[in-house]
């Protein structure tokens, strides 16, 4: 173990400041859990060292040949030793009871602080629905005109609480952005709520944490925390219908999209495409990744994904749609133009 210290430190640093790490909190919820974790970790280290130290003492005494009493005949140390042991063992048990009691109190208090009941006012409400293997995201609003639908990417303003109302469309998934909060299961026929908040701008990766089938490993998403002004700008842009294609190549791409099986599953606001089975593509070009966080959103990756989705993400529900020769490039140009 000792020989591994260096690599350990190396990967600790690597993990601790990752974009998907519970050790690097970016908001009050994850921060409170992190403090609790430090407390638990500290106590654990002390107890562990104590136990292993005692074990070492037992071995050390044997090595040094220290024997207080001959045990051969009775198999029992003197009554005095036994009394001492009794005192030590009972006090240690009592101490552990006290420590555990304290931990329960701290844990319950932290639990209250991060629960949905502690939600401050003026929150943004985002509905997240798990699907095999992508995330559907809706920004709720009293004004139905201001509802935004997107997928696999959640923009949030910094410093403002965001309520996540989670459910699932098929099997159980779990919503988890470790830098912001713990998990909440998304269960079909139920709605679970939690609130998150980012105190600093940044990109935080989230990933499904409940085994949900073949592509559980490739069911990620990004939370993008931006200063409120920037967030509002993003929101205004998302409220627009899809950008009309301006050049002939993209126009052709739109026709390819609308005339092929794509429309059976995908919606593009402002066109006739209104499928519900797959992610909404209205502002697809503005997203940073494709296939639920699997690949960066570049024209090359998109081309690979559309021509052969089963190689990129084996078993996923997007079929390979046969395209006429020469249709692919316009389609890609059109989709990437949906800013």
């Amino acid at each position, binding site marked *: 173990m000792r020989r591994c210290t260096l*690599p350990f430190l190396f990967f*600790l640093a*690597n*993990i601790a400041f*990752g974009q*998907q*790490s*519970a*050790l690097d909190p970016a908001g009050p919820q994850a921060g409170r*859990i992190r403090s*609790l*974790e430090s407390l*638990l970790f500290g106590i*654990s280290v002390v*107890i562990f060292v104590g*136990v292993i130290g*005692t074990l070492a*003492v*037992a*071995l050390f005494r*044997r090595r040094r040949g220290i024997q207080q009493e001959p*045990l051969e005949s009775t*198999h029992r140390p003197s009554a005095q*030793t036994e009394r001492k*042991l*009794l005192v030590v*063992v009972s006090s*240690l*048990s009592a101490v*552990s009871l006290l420590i*555990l009691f304290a*931990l*329960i109190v701290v*844990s*319950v208090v932290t*639990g209250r602080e*991060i629960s949905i009941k502690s939600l401050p006012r003026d929150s943004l409400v985002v509905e997240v629905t798990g699907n095999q293997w992508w995330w559907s995201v809706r920004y709720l609003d009293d004004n139905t005109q201001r509802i935004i639908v997107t997928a696999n990417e959640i923009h949030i303003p910094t410093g403002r609480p965001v309520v996540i109302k989670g459910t699932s469309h*098929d*099997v*159980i998934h779990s919503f988890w952005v*470790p830098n912001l909060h*713990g*998990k*909440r*299961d998304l*269960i*079909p*026929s139920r709605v*679970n709520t939690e609130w998150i908040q980012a105190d600093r701008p940044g990109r935080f990766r989230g*990933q*499904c*944490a*409940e*085994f949900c*089938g*073949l*592509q*559980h*490993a490739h069911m990620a998403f990004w939370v993008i925390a931006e200063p409120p002004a920037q967030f509002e700008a993003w929101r205004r842009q998302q409220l627009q219908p899809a950008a009309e294609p301006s050049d002939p190549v993209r126009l052709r791409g739109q026709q390819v999209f609308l005339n092929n099986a794509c429309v059976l599953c995908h919606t593009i606001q402002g066109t006739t495409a209104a499928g519900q089975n797959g992610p909404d593509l209205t502002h697809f070009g503005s997203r940073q990744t494709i296939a639920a966080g699997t690949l960066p959103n570049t024209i090359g990756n998109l081309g690979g994904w559309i021509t052969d989705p089963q190689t990129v993400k*084996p078993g996923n529900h997007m079929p390979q749609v046969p395209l006429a020769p020469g249709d692919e490039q316009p389609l890609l140009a059109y989709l990437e133009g949906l800013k």
Partner: protein
Amino acid sequence: MNSSKTQFAELQQTDELEQTWKEPKGFLGSLAVVGHKEIGKRYIVTAFIFLLLGGLEALLMRLQLAFPENTFLDPGRYNQIFTTHGTTMMFLFAVPVMEGMGIYLVPLMVGTRNVAFPRLNAFGYWMYLAGGLFLYAGTFFHALPDAGWFAYPPLSGPQFSPGKGVDVWAQMITFTEVSALCVAVELIVTILRMRAPGMTLNRIPMFCWSMLVQSFMIIFAMPAVMIASSVMLLNDRTIGTHFVNPAEGGDPLLYQHIFWFFGHPEVYIIFLPALGMVSSMIETFSRRHLFGYPALVLALVANGFLAFGLWVHHMFATGLPQVGEAYFTAASMMIAITSGVQIFCWLATLCTGRLRTTTALHFVFGFIFIFVLGGLTGVMVASIPFDLQAHDTYFVVAHFHYVLIGGALFPLFGGFHYWFPKFTGRLMDERLGKCSFWILFVGFNLTFFPMHFLGLGGMPRRVYTYSAGMGWELPNLLATVGALTIAVGGIVFIANVMRSRRHGEIADPNPWEGASLEWEAASPPKSYNFPRLPAVDNLWPAWDDISKRTVIEGLSDDRREILITSLNAAEPHHRHTLPKPSIWPFVTTLGLGIGLTGSVIAFSWYYVAAALGAIGFIGWFWPRRPLEFTS
């Protein structure tokens, strides 16, 4: 002058006992065996074969995860492998191997000649074997389960898991749980009513106490999983009952509650016997009375009760109301007290004893090191806020492997070295043993320690791959190297077993100077265990002068007679004759096995199971005259 006559009489008597108790020979005879030692051995050997299979599956997973975006296994295959790994380790290795140790050792430790219901015992083993073969037969029929060892609906439901894999999984549970229940009944009755006269409740060896508590837990826990898997899930899949199908008004959380009502106690079912083994070994190798016997017994019993009060800590992320969550946090943390008390008592014993650092004690030390770490992370995940981060990540994978491998496998390996001379009459090689211990110990920590950081660093469980650049590469690679190291340790262990059983040093009845009754029987024990049943007057009979042992006279040697004693004080109550070998438990299992296997294809096969099972049971219980008990 008289001694040669006495010796002759003794020889004659043991000869007659041997005739009465010997196991039948030949192929058919081997199917009719009802002796506890033979069946115990079969459990242990079968379970170790499943351990090898489960370990191989673990290696495959680790090879796939060694590098990001590795394509060694495709996602479908990976999901089958992790499901089969969990299922094998829980249902086909960990529980059965502990039961095997119990079946072999308990009758020897309480000073009797067999378990209470020998044929039921045989039936239990056959059912277990059938269940294991049934699951692995799925390999050849594209019917391996792939929805996890917990098979949460709706993922495990007919819509999202078409194919027969999940059906096979659910019905496999039926086999193994019937088997577990048989053993539980056996051991409870054996421990409560068949103890040597004088072995009052406060003189029962720790290992027997642990098996007793474990058996009661099985009786309460196993029916729950059978209801979850064999009734609700399987019927949802085969005849559309919609117990747990949310699309039709069923409740997927109901399944989780019932599954974990079993699933949590299951962990203690696996590791309580291991704690019993640890107590036995510590007592022997410290060469002093175990410190705090009453506290240890009470801790075991409390463990048994508390284990049923904390299943919800597997469901903290499902969004249950807070008041309940607080209760379950408290219950989960309280179980640390019972474990803590045991650790303290063991440390007290070790510190004031005169240690003999055999291989077995090495494994005990390894156990303490690993198990304490696993226990501490257990306290951490009992805290809901922390668990919301750790749940379903590699942190939990690390935690429960520390608890299960550290808490159960290390003591089991230690116990195996410790009782090997009793099983085989030969000692295991100490040098090879220590060598395998160190390789396993280093390999284990190398594999699982980095996983704590992986989990907190955001890596979820049950993913067949992960992206590069997340900072997960190095710990994953270390874990794979560790897994290979464990494999090497396993090979050394197997080599040691193979070599020692033929060429090991011959062991006398009590090679370690142990205190309990099994060390008074020959190594390996005769078919009748003890020529005359012993009576005891303290907790450490084998530490007395055994030439002055009080024995029971008056039991018939020409039939399988044993002594039934009273529950509390173990006063002789009456003589009881145990049945002879019988092929019917095997035939019954065969019938039930055919029917239950068919039930995966069509519901109507349950009728076949019922009919064939009934034929088996009728044959089994057919009254024979003259009464077969008399030979």
